[in-house]
Each structure stands twice: as structure tokens, then as C-alpha cells.
């Protein structure tokens, strides 16, 4: 049997890494791995850097599916997919990017299938498709309720098939920017300790989202805005950061996600009076209205006193044992394990929870950013595909389409340069000094209180509904938290597996990002998509705000600017479901 050893290992004695690659991908979820595969296939020498083993990435938590207009379960077309996505985005998505995405999605699905994706089939053996929120046709390809898991394993398999190197459990925390753009990244080797300098001709950020800025987020512990903050600190603009999707069905109290697919397959929402309240908010689509619409309906029910201690009920009892077992064994398992409730017997307590960041590093359709040699793809990026609100099933597809495109573009860019990539001489010692300062501090505050206050206050002041006064209060609070962070204590002084250090660095990322999010939110004086200001600016204002916000960090100052939305076919209309 062939045996490959491709990466670092403590027990296998690879001493030190000072590596140089054509393309370096930071983050090894679906977007990162897809990008690496494409860059490899385009002829580049590519490596991934990830703070987790690839299959532990948060893409694996995506449950319900991946959208492409295959037309297997009813009439559909890329145009219809695009129209739904544009409407779902509340007209803030860039329509050129959306059209391209919807057109390329089916080909990518077929390729994933040929690589071995275990998608569910219809009776004829073709890919099955299910209805999802905000979609006019059954468009979501799926693998039971573990679609993200299946794709994550599949892409890892394809990585191994190509022998692509992974710097596993390397915590990247700084982009190195030189005169000619990005030269590489600095990473802390979690397993062995020590700063590693990794040079590259092109760097692709694929670090995922920022959900842990909020308490009770659906996101994994690892989703701490790393790539967005690294980009910000390197001078890149971040786009539409005020748009955070709140998923309507997160389990109380854990915040774990109950897939939208259960509503797609007929689950419904009840308030404390046992009424299907969605008929007042979205009489046509009911529970399958777009996520922002359902989350706002729930928050309104909660705010107006028709909840059960802050929870609504998700009723799946009518599914019956067979349907539950076949399609939602994962969901039932989740409910029994973390809420102690069997959804066949009792409805589940749910509430809206922070789930997905529509905003991110501003890129074009090839993942290019404003800084030379830096690319981004997946949740960390803002193409903008999702605009003000993302449709369920579009983010997994985004990781594949735009991961692939970024991988191709980065490889082409890197292959144009001769020689091997090099980092400026001072970069590594700069990084070592930064970490030494943190590690040498003997007194200070543990990160926990700061992290808890950040999460709770973001929920309170920058949640489903926003208003001027609360956002201003939040900015003040963030300033205070950032000051406290200057004295944060890393108790662990060791080199080997010092997650105390990496978690403190993550908190720094989160604080920087929260500041940008709230700043952008204050300036967007309208209600659009997931950014809802019912008390001061309840209406969408296309005349003044049909544009993307851009936040950048210049000279220790947050600079906010705007850029136009690209409109091709669909003029803004009133958005109802």
C-alpha cells in the first residue's frame, strides 16, 4: 500500500518550517480546500495553513444543502436562481456576480458528484433537490442533513488525491505586506510552538466567518473573524459588515442550529398562543420566507410578549418516525442531546441566533482584493453575492464557485512571477516580538470576561433590530473592551499546544471586527436585509443607500466609504414573501 507523509509531525521530526510556495491558502474549510485544489490543478505549488485539521472546519456544520438550478425536481433556471438571490439580498447583491454564480453552479455540482459527493438521489437516480427559504423552485441539492460534512470530507479526499500540503494546526495571525503587496503570512505552530514565516506569491484568505462575536451564535468556537481582522490590519477594505444573518431556528439554550430543511419539509413555527404567527408576516411563504424575515417576525413576537421565556416553538411532531429517521436523524439527535427533547414528542424551543456574515473582505468575482497578491473566498469574503441577506444553500455553493475562481486567479497570478517567494527579513522577528509582549505579561485580566461582555452586548445592541442610541452605546463599550484587551493575560507561557495564546489573539480579532461592524451599521441609516432599524429608519432607502459600505483602517482610524451596487437586470422592488 502506498504510504504518504506530507506534513509536519512531532513524532516524525520535521524540525522547522520556513517555507515558500506559489499560493498559500489560509483556512481549510470548503472554500479554502476548493481554492487549493484549483490552484494545484492550474499548475501552482500550493499549501494550506489552518488552525484546525481540515475536516474539523466549520463548513462541516452546514446542514441543509447547496443551491444550483439543475431543474431535477421541477422547472428551474440559472436566471430564476439569480432573481431569487437578488431579491433575497434585498437588492444589495452585485448582480453581475450573482448571474455568474448561478450560471456556473450546476457545473460545479456535477463535478463534486463525479469526485464522489454522496448527494441524495431521486427515484430515477438523479440528484434530488429540495425547497429552501426564499427560493422559487426546489433547488437545493443535499446529503440528508449533513451536506456540509459530506462536502468537507470530499474536498479533503481530493486534497489527498493531489498530495497537497497542509500546515495543520498552524494559527495564522498576520499578513506580511511589503512594497509589492502581500509576501506571505506569519503563523504560530500550535503543536510545537514558535512563529513560522510562510512566504507566498499569492495568499488566499478562506478563514470563514465571525459568528463568535455574538453570544449564542450557531458558529463553532473557531469562527473568530481571523481573516477579516488580518485583512483589516493589512489595510484591506471590508465590505457590508453591518449585515449579519440571524438564523431563525437556533436551539435554546445552546444556540445550535436546527436546519432550515425541516421547514422546507413542512415544519412550522408557533408562538406562546400556539398560533402559526408567520401568517401575519409572510402570508404566502409562511415559514419559508427569507431568513431575515422569519428572524424579525420571531424577534417581534418575543418583544411583544408572545414567546415562552424568549423562545418560539418549532413543531416537527407531524413528521412521524419514518420521515424523521430518513431525513433528519441528525436534527433529532441534536435536539435530544442538547435540549433533552425528542422532536417527535414535543416542539423545540428556538430563537434567532447570529449565523452568517454577509459582509467581509471586498473582492471581485475572482477573489481579488485591493491589495496585490491577496485573494479571499467563502464567508470571509464579500463578492457581493448575498448583499443584505443570504439565502439558505447559497453559502456552500459560494465556497465552491468562488473558491475555485479564487484558486485559479491566484495560481495564474503567482505563476507569472519567476523565482521563489520571499518574506522581508524583519517580518518574523516582528511577529515574535508581538507574541513575546503578550506572553511576558504577568498580570492582567483573563480574556473570558471581555469575550462574554462582547458577545452579550453585541446581541443586545447590534442584534436583529438596531437603533442609533444602542449602536452608539455599543461603540463606547467596545472602546472600553479594547482598552481592557491591551492588558489581557495569557496565563499559559508554554510553547506546546498553547491554545490560551491563540484564543487571546482570536479575541483581538473579534474586538477589531465588532468595532467595524457597528461603525458601518451606524452609518447605514435605513432598513435593508438583515440590517433592520424599525425605530429610527424603518424603510429601505434606495436613493441614499443602494450601495456597499467599505470600512478600512488607516492611521489608527476607521475610515468609512461607499461603493455602488452593480445592477444588470433587476431593478429594486418592494420585497415581500
Amino acid at each position, binding site marked *: 500500500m502506498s504510504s504518504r507523509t506530507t506534513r509536519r509531525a512531532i513524532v516524525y521530526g520535521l524540525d522547522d518550517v520556513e517555507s515558500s510556495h506559489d499560493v498559500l491558502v489560509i483556512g481549510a474549510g470548503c472554500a479554502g480546500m476548493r481554492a487549493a485544489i484549483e490552484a494545484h490543478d492550474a499548475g501552482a505549488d500550493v499549501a494550506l495553513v489552518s488552525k484546525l485539521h481540515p475536516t474539523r472546519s466549520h463548513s462541516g456544520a452546514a446542514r441543509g444543502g447547496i443551491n444550483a438550478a439543475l431543474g431535477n425536481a421541477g422547472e428551474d433556471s440559472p436566471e430564476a436562481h439569480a432573481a431569487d438571490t437578488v431579491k433575497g439580498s434585498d437588492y444589495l447583491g452585485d448582480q453581475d456576480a450573482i448571474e455568474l454564480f448561478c450560471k456556473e453552479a450546476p457545473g460545479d455540482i456535477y463535478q463534486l458528484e463525479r469526485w464522489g459527493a454522496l448527494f441524495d438521489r431521486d427515484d430515477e437516480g438523479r440528484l434530488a433537490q429540495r425547497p429552501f427559504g426564499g427560493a422559487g423552485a426546489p433547488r437545493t441539492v443535499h446529503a440528508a442533513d449533513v451536506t456540509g460534512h459530506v462536502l468537507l470530507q470530499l474536498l479533503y479526499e481530493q486534497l489527498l488525491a493531489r498530495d497537497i500540503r497542509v500546515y495543520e494546526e498552524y494559527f495564522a495571525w498576520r499578513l506580511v505586506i511589503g512594497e509589492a503587496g502581500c509576501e506571505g503570512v506569519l503563523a504560530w505552530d500550535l503543536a510545537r510552538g514558535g512563529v513560522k514565516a510562510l512566504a507566498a506569491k499569492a495568499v488566499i484568505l478562506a478563514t470563514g466567518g465571525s459568528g463568535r462575536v455574538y453570544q449564542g451564535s450557531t458558529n463553532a468556537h473557531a469562527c473568530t473573524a481571523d481573516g477579516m481582522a488580518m485583512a483589516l490590519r493589512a489595510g484591506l477594505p471590508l465590505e457590508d459588515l453591518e449585515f449579519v444573518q440571524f438564523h431563525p431556528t437556533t436551539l435554546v439554550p445552546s444556540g445550535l442550529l436546527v436546519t432550515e430543511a425541516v421547514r422546507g419539509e413542512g415544519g412550522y413555527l408557533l408562538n406562546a398562543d400556539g398560533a402559526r404567527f408567520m401568517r401575519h408576516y409572510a402570508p404566502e411563504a409562511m415559514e419559508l420566507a427569507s431568513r431575515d424575515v422569519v428572524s424579525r417576525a420571531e424577534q417581534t413576537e418575543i418583544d411583544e410578549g408572545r414567546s415562552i421565556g424568549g423562545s418560539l416553538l418549532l413543531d416537527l411532531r407531524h413528521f412521524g418516525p419514518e420521515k424523521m429517521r430518513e431525513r433528519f436523524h441528525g436534527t433529532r439527535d441534536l435536539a435530544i442531546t442538547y435540549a433533552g427533547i425528542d422532536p417527535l414528542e414535543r416542539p423545540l424551543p428556538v430563537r434567532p441566533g447570529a449565523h452568517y456574515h454577509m459582509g467581509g473582505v471586498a473582492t471581485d468575482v475572482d477573489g481579488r482584493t485591493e491589495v496585490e497578491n491577496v485573494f479571499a473566498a467563502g464567508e470571509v469574503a464579500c463578492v457581493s453575492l448575498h448583499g443584505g441577506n443570504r439565502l439558505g444553500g447559497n453559502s456552500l455553493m459560494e465556497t465552491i464557485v468562488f473558491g475555485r475562481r479564487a484558486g485559479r486567479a491566484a495560481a495564474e497570478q503567482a505563476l507569472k512571477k519567476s523565482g521563489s517567494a520571499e518574506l522581508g527579513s524583519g517580518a518574523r522577528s516582528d511577529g515574535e516580538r508581538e507574541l513575546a509582549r503578550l506572553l511576558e505579561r504577568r498580570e492582567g485580566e483573563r480574556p473570558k470576561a471581555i469575550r462574554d461582555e462582547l458577545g452579550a452586548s453585541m446581541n443586545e445592541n447590534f442584534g436583529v433590530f438596531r437603533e442609533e442610541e444602542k449602536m452608539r452605546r455599543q461603540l463606547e463599550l467596545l472602546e472600553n473592551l479594547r482598552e481592557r484587551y491591551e492588558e489581557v493575560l495569557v496565563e499559559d507561557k508554554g510553547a506546546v499546544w498553547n491554545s*490560551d495564546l491563540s484564543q487571546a489573539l482570536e479575541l483581538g480579532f473579534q474586538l477589531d471586527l465588532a468595532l467595524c461592524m457597528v461603525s458601518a451599521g451606524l452609518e447605514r441609516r435605513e432598513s435593508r436585509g438583515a440590517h433592520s432599524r424599525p425605530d429610527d429608519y424603518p424603510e429601505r432607502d434606495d436613493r441614499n443607500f443602494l450601495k456597499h459600505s467599505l470600512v478600512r483602517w488607516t492611521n489608527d482610524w476607521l475610515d468609512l466609504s461607499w461603493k455602488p451596487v452593480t445592477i444588470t437586470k433587476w431593478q429594486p422592488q418592494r420585497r415581500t414573501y
Partner: protein
Amino acid sequence: MQVRLQIRRSDPATGETRLQLYQLDHVRPAATLLDCLEEIKEEQDGTLAFRRSCREGICGSCAVRIDGRTALACRTSVAELLAGGRIPLITPIGNLPLIRDLVVEMEPMWQKMRSVQPFLSPTSDSPGEGRETVVSPALLEAVHKEALCINCGACISECDALTVSPEFLGPHALSKAWRLVGDPREPATGRRLQELSREHGIWECTRCYLCNERCPKGVDPRDAIAKLGAEAFAAGVTRDRGARHARWFVTSARTTGWLRESELVVKTLGVAVSVTKIPLALRLFRRGKAPLPLPRHKAKGLEPARALQRIVAGQDRRGARGIVQGERVLARIELVRVPEPPEPEAEDF
């Protein structure tokens, strides 16, 4: 709720380990073991090292041993652990080298996974860019469970065969192997079965079923190994000692209805090697631990057993389709349409 935990700590420099007792005084009743580890790290001891990410049983980071049993910390209710007033002992998972505290080096597991070439073999006759491969849902069902694997290492931790024989491919890599051999789209199953049937492959499993027992995702790795074995048989790949050993069970059950252990040695090892075992056999016989090979007798009620075998044979259950093991599988099997059973051939059937 008050929680006390004993956690095995280690010094990465010296490799020395010790137990440390932690106490948490205000834990909510629904808390998981991972919640408690987080609280210890955040509020009491920042130096405690463990892996975690998703906190919902899908990333596979946080497998640990709890009083010796491997489980995901994030799926373990701490209230249940405390039942009976015990102080749970939390240690790193087994059969992998220690890095620090609860963190182990997973590379040996990944290395074995890589060695089975865990990806669909590229085909020359794959469909064009236009469409998907058409595959019946029933055929894909064959690898459904194995695809749920989250690489947490619980099966590796529990595998006694791995402890004794570190080169054994092990339950994780072999489940992954079945994920591919069992995929109706995979063209290279013959080559794979040949390779997997070699030393340290399929037949090194000792069938203790602890991997099935402890897998947090219901992958049932032992079932996957059994399916690989059955497919190897069906494909005529039976040269390995383990395969010959298994085949003798079937033969002796069919012919005399009981396991003829003395002949088993010859059938498994071959005549030449068996001769060297004669002194051992004599010693065993003297102590009453080995039956005499002759005279042969037939077990009572043999005919109904043969009838059962014929029924199963008539159901087209060759290869992996014949493998029905594990409670979770039994729960699924009621969905399979079985042919009407023929009339029983004997009253004691």
C-alpha cells in the same frame, strides 16, 4: 450543580503525567463535559490543553477518555457522569502519542487513512461536463453510515488490535476504505480489496466490537470491516490467513454444525506451519483444552441450520449485502423487503 473532575495533565518537556482535581461550583444541569473543560480553562487554569471547535458533535476534535471509555466531550452530559457521586477521570484518547494534557498526535491516524487512498478513483468513462452519474439511491445506501465519520479517533482509541499490533490499519482507515469500495461509482474495487486483504488489513481485526460501541456517529466501523471481508470473499480474494480462518468457520458449520478447532489450525496456517504447532496441540489436549479431531460427529439440529443458510443464500446477500450487524443496522433492516420464508423444514427450527 457542583462538578469535580480529575484530569490527567502532562508536561510536554519531560513527558511526566499527573492527575489534577478541578472543582466547578455553579454548573448548569444541561452542561456538557466540554462546557466544563471550557470553564476550567477560562476561569481557573489557562494552561489546560484540549482540542475543541464545533461543540455539537460534528467536527470530531474533542474525543477524550472518560473513566476509560472514549467519547466526545461535547456530547457527554456531565450530570450523567456524576451519578453515584463519582469523580470522573478524564484522560487523552488511546493508541496515539501524547502531545500535551488531552491533546494527542493524530498523524498516525491520518497516515493510515492516506494509505488506503481515500478518494474515488478517477475514471476514464466519467460522464461529460453536463450531468451527474445516475445511481440508484439504494446502491448509495451501502456507504451511508461510513460517510458519517468525523475522524474523531474514538474507534482508534478503543481498538485492542491496534494496541497489540500498531501497524494494523485500524477501524478508522478501514471504514474509510469501505466508503470507497462500497461506492457504486468506484471502478477499482478489486485492486483495493487485494491491498486491504494483506497483512495488517481487514483480517487483523479481532472483532471485539468496541469501535461500534463507542463511535459517536453510528459509523459502526466493525460492520465496515465485515463488509470488506465479505466483498473480498465474493471477489475470491481469500488467500490471507484471516480469510482462510473465517472460511473454515463457514465450512465446518455447514458440514458438521460445530467449529472443528483442530482442523482450523491446519486450514488457517497450512500443513507446513501446522506441523510446528503439534507440541502445543498435544499440551492443550493433555490439559483438556483441545478436542480430539476424530471421530467427527454432527451437531444436533444441523438440518434447520442448513435450511437457514439456504434461505439467506436465496436472498441474494452475497458480499456486503449479507452483513447485518449492530443494533443501528437492525433498526434499519425492517425497511428491506425480504422474500417470503419457505416452510420450516424441521420442527425444532
